[in-house]
C-alpha cells in the first residue's frame, strides 16, 4: 500500500473514532492524490440505512424568525412575490387619515444674499450702502409686510428682528436640553427632523455669546397653499453673531467645536408663520446658505473614502470630489 493511501486510511479511522468530519478540503486533496483504483471510501457500503433513518423523522417546515429584517433588503418586486406566495394582500396604497399642514415644504423665492456680505467693514462705502438699503426700497417684500399687517396689526419689521433672535436662542437651547415641546413651538415641522437627527445620542453645548451686528430683516414673502385664504408668510432675518458650540458623542468625547473658542456666524434664517391660523407662531423654518459662504470647520475624524467605480464608456467621468470631507460635514452635528 502506498504511503498516501496509508495516511488517508489513518485519517479516516481517526476521524471516525473521534466522530469528526474530515474537512471538505482534506478530502479533496486526498482524493486528488490517490489513483482511481485505490479510491478512499467516504460513503457507507450500503447507504439504504441512512435513507431509512431519514424516513423515521416527520419533516417539519421550520419558520424563519428573521424574515422581517431580511425583507428590508429586498426590492419591491421580491416583496410582492413573497406576499403572493403567502397568500397575503398587499398594503393599502391610500391613507384614510387626515393630514394637517402646519408649514410649507420649503422656502419660496429664496433671498439672494449679496456676495462678500459680512466681510465688508461697516465704515466703508459698500458696507454703508448695504446697511442703508432698507427693506422699504423692496416692493415685493413691502407687499408681503402689508399682507402680514392685515392679519397682525402690530407687526413691525424692526421689532420682529429682535423677536427673531429670541426665538433662535429658545430653539437652540431647547435642542441642547432635548426639550421637544419648546422645540416644536419654536421650529417648524420641516426643520425639526433636520435639527433632531444630528443630535441623536449626542450631548450639545451651545451658547449665543453676543450679536456682532444688530439683526436685520432682509426679505419677506407670502404664499397660499391649496386655498387663497390659507396664507403663509416667510421672513428672512440676517443674523451676525458670535456663538459657542461643542458637540460630544455618546461616550462624552468631544466630536466637534470647542467650549472655549467662540466663532463668528453669519446666517440668513427663514422664519415662517401660518397667518390664517389664529394660533400661528413665528418659527424657524430654514436657512439660506449662499454658494460663496466658506465651508464649516472640518470634523477632527477620518472616514474611509469609498472607491469610485470606473466610468462606463459613453458616460462622463464622475467628479472625484472629496467624498470623505463631504460625508464628514454631513455627519458634523452643527445644530443650526
Amino acid at each position, binding site marked *: 500500500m502506498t504511503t498516501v493511501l496509508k495516511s488517508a486510511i489513518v485519517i479516516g479511522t481517526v476521524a471516525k473514532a473521534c466522530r469528526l*468530519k474530515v*474537512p471538505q478540503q482534506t478530502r479533496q486533496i486526498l482524493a486528488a492524490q490517490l489513483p482511481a483504483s485505490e479510491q478512499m471510501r467516504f460513503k457507507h457500503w450500503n447507504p439504504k440505512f441512512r435513507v431509512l433513518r431519514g424516513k*423515521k*423523522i*416527520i419533516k*417539519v417546515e*421550520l*419558520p424563519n*424568525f*428573521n424574515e422581517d429584517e431580511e425583507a428590508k433588503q429586498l426590492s419591491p418586486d421580491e416583496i410582492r412575490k413573497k406576499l403572493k406566495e403567502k397568500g397575503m394582500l398587499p398594503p393599502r396604497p391610500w391613507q384614510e387619515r387626515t393630514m394637517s399642514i402646519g408649514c410649507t415644504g420649503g422656502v419660496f423665492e429664496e433671498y439672494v444674499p449679496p456676495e462678500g456680505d459680512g466681510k465688508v467693514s461697516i465704515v466703508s462705502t459698500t458696507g454703508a450702502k448695504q446697511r442703508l438699503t432698507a427693506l422699504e426700497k423692496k416692493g415685493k417684500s413691502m407687499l408681503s409686510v402689508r399682507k402680514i399687517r392685515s392679519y397682525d396689526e402690530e407687526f413691525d419689521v424692526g421689532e420682529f428682528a429682535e423677536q427673531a433672535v429670541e426665538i433662535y436662542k429658545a430653539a437652540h437651547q431647547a435642542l441642547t436640553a432635548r426639550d421637544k415641546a419648546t422645540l416644536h413651538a419654536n421650529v417648524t415641522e420641516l426643520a425639526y427632523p433636520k435639527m433632531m437627527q444630528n443630535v441623536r*445620542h*449626542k*450631548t450639545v*453645548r451651545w451658547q449665543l455669546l453676543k450679536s456682532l451686528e444688530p439683526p436685520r430683516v432682509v426679505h419677506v414673502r407670502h404664499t397660499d397653499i391649496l386655498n387663497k385664504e390659507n396664507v403663509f408668510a416667510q421672513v428672512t432675518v440676517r443674523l451676525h453673531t458670535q456663538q459657542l458650540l461643542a458637540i*460630544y*458623542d*455618546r*461616550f*462624552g*468625547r*468631544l*466630536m466637534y467645536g470647542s467650549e472655549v473658542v467662540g466663532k463668528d456666524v453669519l446666517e440668513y434664517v427663514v422664519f415662517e408663520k401660518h397667518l390664517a391660523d389664529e394660533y400661528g407662531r413665528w418659527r424657524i423654518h430654514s436657512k439660506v446658505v449662499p454658494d460663496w459662504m466658506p465651508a464649516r470647520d472640518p470634523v477632527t*475624524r*477620518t472616514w*474611509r473614502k469609498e472607491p469610485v467605480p470606473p466610468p462606463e464608456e459613453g458616460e462622463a467621468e464622475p467628479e472625484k470630489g472629496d467624498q470623505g470631507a463631504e460625508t464628514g460635514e454631513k455627519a458634523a452635528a452643527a445644530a443650526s
Partner: protein
Amino acid sequence: MLSARILQRIIATNAAWPGGITAAAATLLPSRVPSSVPELGPARPAGVRAMSFLPPTGPRRWPLYNEQVFPPTGADEAPRPAFVCHVKTNVKYSTKKMWYIASMIRGMSIEEALKQLQFVNKKGAQIVSEALKEAQEMAVRDHNVEFKNNLWVAESFATKGRVLKGLRRHARARPGIVHYRYTHYFVRLEEGAPPEQYYADAPLPPEEMLKRWLEQRRQRTITHSL
C-alpha cells in the same frame, strides 16, 4: 402509533410562550474584570406578561445599551472607550454548540477573531463572523469609532432562543421528540487594544508570583519574638 396525549403535549408546547430566556452565560463565566457598562433596569415593567398568541420578539435589553448617553468627560478623566452591543436573534443553531465559538473569541481583537473563525469548521463560526462584521459596521457608522480594526471583543455569549418540537419514530413504533433549537448570539465590541488577560483569575507570570509570595511572608506577625 403515537398516543394522542403525547401529540397534544407537543402541539401545546410549540404554541405556548417558551420559558423565559435562561440566565445569561455570564453566570457561568469565571470571575472577570468588571464591565465598564453600567447596569440597565428591566426591559419591560414587572407584572406585564407576554400574550401567548403573539410571536416572540426576542431579547430587548441588549440593544438598549446602544442608546445610553454618557456625560462629557472632564479634562482630568481618561476618555471613555466607545462600545457597541449587537445581537443576532433566533439563529438556527444549538446554544451548547454556540458556546464553544462564543467563548473562543472572548478578549480577542476583532481582526484576530475574524481570522480565527475562518478556520473553525462549524456553522456557528459563520454566524459569529457575520455578527462581528455587522457590529463593526454599526460602530463606525453610528457610534463614532474611527478605525474599524481598533475594536476588541469585550463580551460574547449565547442564550437559548425558541425551541420547536417535532416527532420521530423509534424502533417498535416508540415515539421520540426532535428539538429544533434556535439561539440568540450577543456580542459587545469595545474600542481600543484588547487587555493582556481577559479573565481575572488568569495565572500570573513567575516574577509576579514570587513578588506576591515574598510580600505575604514579610507581612507575617511572629508572636512571642524578641
